[in-house]
């Protein structure tokens, strides 16, 4: 887009509309005056007015002719101005910070310690302020709003604020956030809030007409006929009707003009935003994410009151109307990037997104890439949707049904294993679990030089820090038996890039949350944070579970299991989490199905060795330990070809191996655990996931990881 020309166009249009607006006010006063003058003689108004015929005949002097009309006209204009001024004063007295705090915003100040996403937000706002050459506006975060939305408030460039929701921090990538912040900064730069306030005030002035008319007509409500009602003089009724009708018409027209000005200002702000960032693509993708109102909706009353200043729809499905304050997003995207929307979002996909807003939203949370949220939507949400469609309706969408991977009955299905941790949770292990590069043999690592007890302490310290950094109300929930279920569930769900429809249904059916919104708010709170060791957090929450009945514990466990397996992939972190929780709640170790011994473990003697190798294999891959050196550590001959096996290994095998090793004498297990520790510490760090796995293993064998804190014997170190 040529943003300079677009800005010029939008500006000149706005000017025309403002002239129209003021013209409308004068016209209104004029129309009322002339009506009163015309009807004056018939109403026998108590004013000394020459009649029309007299004026036409030229019997009266100039001053007589214009005395009353001008008096009425100017007093009407004065009244409108006065009413507008009062409204203006009332609206502007609140002050920027007061308004933002009234919305429920939390000020991000410049000196306090900030979370990483908040820091990025602050940086972005500073960048955009520099780009627009304005002072940095105040920044507020609405902590209770999981939707993606933002607003600019404040009446002058020097006293302005930008308000963003919590969902904004999570749902937008850096460049998208930058584009939207640029849009808000443009509103500040162009003085749109002041313009809007002016228009609201003038509208209020016109509304004053309507109100006066209504007041005059009030006595008419009684049942007596007008002529016989002694309290209603006829002239007043007629004037009342005139004021009411013209006021209503004027107000309606005023609203139309106001809406149309405000739409022009949106286009102007978009154009200015592109000028500030020189990145039209980011603004396009950012606006695409606002297409469904579920993703942008506001939940708290205090912020809904200001819904007109938010970029995304706050409450209802945005349909175009002449009274809409924002142009349709499609039009805006089209203006920014002609043809882009159609190229990237064919109508069919767009329809799916619009139909499946919740999935879209949750998918957006998990993905920072430009368009990847779309693919997620299509692969998880909409295919589930398509599947349901085919169940519900006649079987016609055959192509859609083929890609539907989710069937409601998962627990007995064959569980595929993906050996990855979710990216959002485990950044350091993004390379696929068994495809990690094995060559990176950096022997002189940091972790090797520290004692294991120290490393464990550091991990739990991280987890503790995570908890204490939470808002106190959220933190305390981990210790309350009424709340612990919800908070743990939200924490676990926030790890996923998107919650598919099936999980949403499972959670709803479980009745743990009163409504979806509550769940979304809690999820959003967690999804902004980098989550440390899960087992540690679970262990903190366990005491609160003690008051649960056996059945309640079991049903919670079932729910977690259902969620973990709903995609038919049990991932390593899910396995860890589940095993740990299961043991912690006092259930014996097993996944909820009979796990047959892996085919490559046949003989009895080999079973133990094989089990050890299976566990060691997982740990070695996590810590990039060379597989060829495993026999040296374990001091056993591998019963199978390790490189061959690692392609076939499944989570059931891990459970089986854990069960097998649990049968060994305590001393052997301790020795094996020490070997495991050694393998885990091979690479430069002892990560949270390594801690989690070891923790889960220890718990299922009845050990405490912290008490294991002795370093392995020296000969093992040399062995590697």
């Amino acid at each position, binding site marked *: 887009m040529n943003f300079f020309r677009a800005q010029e166009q939008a500006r000149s249009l706005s000017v025309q509309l403002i002239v129209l607006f003021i013209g409308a006010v004068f016209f209104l006063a004029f129309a009322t005056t002339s009506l009163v003058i015309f009807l004056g003689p018939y109403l026998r108004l108590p004013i000394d007015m020459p009649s029309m015929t007299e004026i036409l005949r030229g019997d009266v002097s100039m001053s007589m002719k214009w005395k009353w009309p001008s008096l009425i006209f100017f007093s009407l204009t004065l009244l409108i101005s006065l009413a507008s001024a009062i409204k203006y004063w009332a609206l502007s007295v609140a002050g920027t910070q007061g308004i933002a705090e009234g919305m429920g915003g939390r000020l991000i100040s410049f000196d306090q310690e900030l979370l990483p996403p908040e820091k990025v937000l602050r940086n*972005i706002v500073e960048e955009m302020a*520099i780009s627009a050459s304005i002072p940095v506006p105040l920044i507020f975060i609405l902590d209770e709003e999981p939707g993606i939305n933002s607003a600019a408030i404040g009446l002058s460039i020097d006293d302005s604020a930008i308000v963003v929701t919590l969902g904004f921090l999570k749902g937008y990538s850096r460049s998208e956030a930058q584009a939207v912040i640029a849009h808000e900064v443009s509103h500040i730069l162009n003085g749109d809030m002041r313009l809007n306030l002016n228009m609201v005030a003038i509208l209020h002035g016109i509304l004053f007409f309507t109100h006066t008319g209504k007041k005059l007509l009030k006595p008419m409500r009684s049942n007596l006929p007008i002529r016989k009602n002694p309290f209603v003089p006829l002239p007043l009724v007629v004037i009342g009707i005139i004021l009411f009708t013209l006021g209503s018409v004027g107000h309606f027209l005023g609203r139309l003009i106001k809406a149309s000005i405000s739409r022009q200002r949106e286009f102007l702000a978009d154009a200015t935003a592109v000028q500030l960032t020189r990145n039209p693509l980011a603004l396009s993708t950012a606006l695409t994410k606002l297409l469904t109102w579920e993703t942008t909706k506001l939940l708290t009353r205090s912020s809904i009151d200001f819904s007109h200043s938010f970029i995304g729809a706050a409450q209802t499905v945005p349909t175009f109307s002449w009274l809409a304050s924002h142009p349709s997003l499609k039009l805006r995207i089209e203006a920014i990037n002609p043809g882009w929307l159609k190229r990237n979002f064919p109508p069919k996909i767009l329809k799916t997104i619009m139909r499946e807003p919740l999935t879209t939203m949750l998918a957006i949370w998990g993905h920072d890439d430009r368009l990847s949220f779309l693919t997620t939507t299509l692969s998880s949400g909409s295919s589930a949707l398509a599947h349901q469609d085919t169940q519900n309706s006649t079987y016609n969408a055959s192509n859609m049904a083929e890609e539907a991977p989710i069937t409601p009955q998962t627990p007995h299905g064959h569980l595929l294993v993906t050996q990855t941790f979710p990216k959002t949770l485990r950044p350091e292990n993004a390379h696929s679990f068994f495809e990690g590069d094995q060559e990176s043999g950096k022997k002189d690592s940091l972790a090797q030089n520290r004692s294991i007890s120290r490393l464990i302490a550091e991990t739990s310290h991280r987890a503790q820090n995570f908890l204490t950094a939470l808002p106190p109300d959220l933190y305390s929930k981990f210790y309350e038996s009424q709340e612990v279920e919800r908070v743990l569930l939200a924490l676990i769900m926030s790890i996923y890039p998107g919650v598919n429809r099936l999980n949403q249904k499972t959670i709803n059916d479980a009745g743990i949350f009163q409504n979806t919104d509550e769940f979304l708010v809690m999820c959003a709170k967690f999804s902004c944070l980098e989550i440390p060791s899960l087992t540690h957090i679970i262990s903190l929450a366990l005491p609160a579970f003690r008051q649960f009945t056996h059945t309640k514990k079991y049903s919670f466990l079932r729910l977690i299991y259902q969620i973990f397996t709903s995609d038919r992939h049990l991932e390593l972190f899910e396995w860890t989490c589940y095993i740990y929780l299961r043991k912690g709640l006092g259930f014996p170790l097993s996944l909820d199905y009979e796990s047959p011994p892996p085919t490559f473990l046949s003989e009895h003697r080999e079973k133990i060795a094989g089990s050890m190798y299976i566990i060691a294999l997982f740990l070695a891959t996590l810590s990039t330990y060379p597989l060829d050196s495993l026999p040296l550590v374990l001091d056993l001959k591998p019963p199978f070809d390790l490189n061959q096996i690692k392609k076939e290994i499944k989570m059931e095998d891990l459970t089986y191996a854990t069960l097998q090793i649990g049968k060994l004498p305590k001393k052997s297990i301790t020795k094996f655990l020490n070997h495991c520790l050694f393998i885990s510490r091979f690479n430069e760090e002892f990560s949270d996931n390594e801690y989690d796995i070891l923790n889960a293993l220890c718990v299922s064998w009845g050990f405490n990881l912290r008490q294991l804190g002795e370093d392995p014997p020296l000969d093992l170190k040399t062995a590697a």
Partner: protein
Amino acid sequence: MNSSVIIVLTIAIILFWISLYNRLVKMRNYYENAFSQIDVQLKRRYDLIPNLVETAKGYLEHEKSTLEAVIKARSAAVSACGAAAKDPSSTHEMTKLTEAEGFLQQSLGKLLAVMEAYPDLKGDQHILDVMEELRTTENKISFARQAFNDAVMRFNVLRETFPINLVAVLFRFRQAIYFELSNPSEREAVKVSFKRD
């Protein structure tokens, strides 16, 4: 009657010329102010660099030459920036500054590329913080430069339009110089990777 008309007309014309002159002065101040913002951000980057180098030193013993190049480019840029800030409309100083900045950006880019190759380094929270700071500073510099260039453009357009060009010539308003990177290889942005995964 006639003389009074002439007087009124003269006054009107003088007022008009004054307003034109004032507009030019205002625009010139805008772009000079925009330059001061670049200046602030460049200095911020100069302050960040020793911090970054200090942190990276422990890890990058074999990359001494890269680190030294960064330090050297930084000190050259610092002095060029000081000279340019005194007179943003001077073509000579601006060219010198863009040159020095280009060098600094190049060497910084190389350092960051080297750092990418050391996984130990990327795990260091302190390094991540510094890199984040560096990234936002890079952005701020480029946005400040963009704001400066936009202001320069507006000033130049104003200066060249009739009848303001007459005033501009009369009062010697020089054409403002864009802040551009002269060498194509210097145009490459510094790569700051925030991929933690």
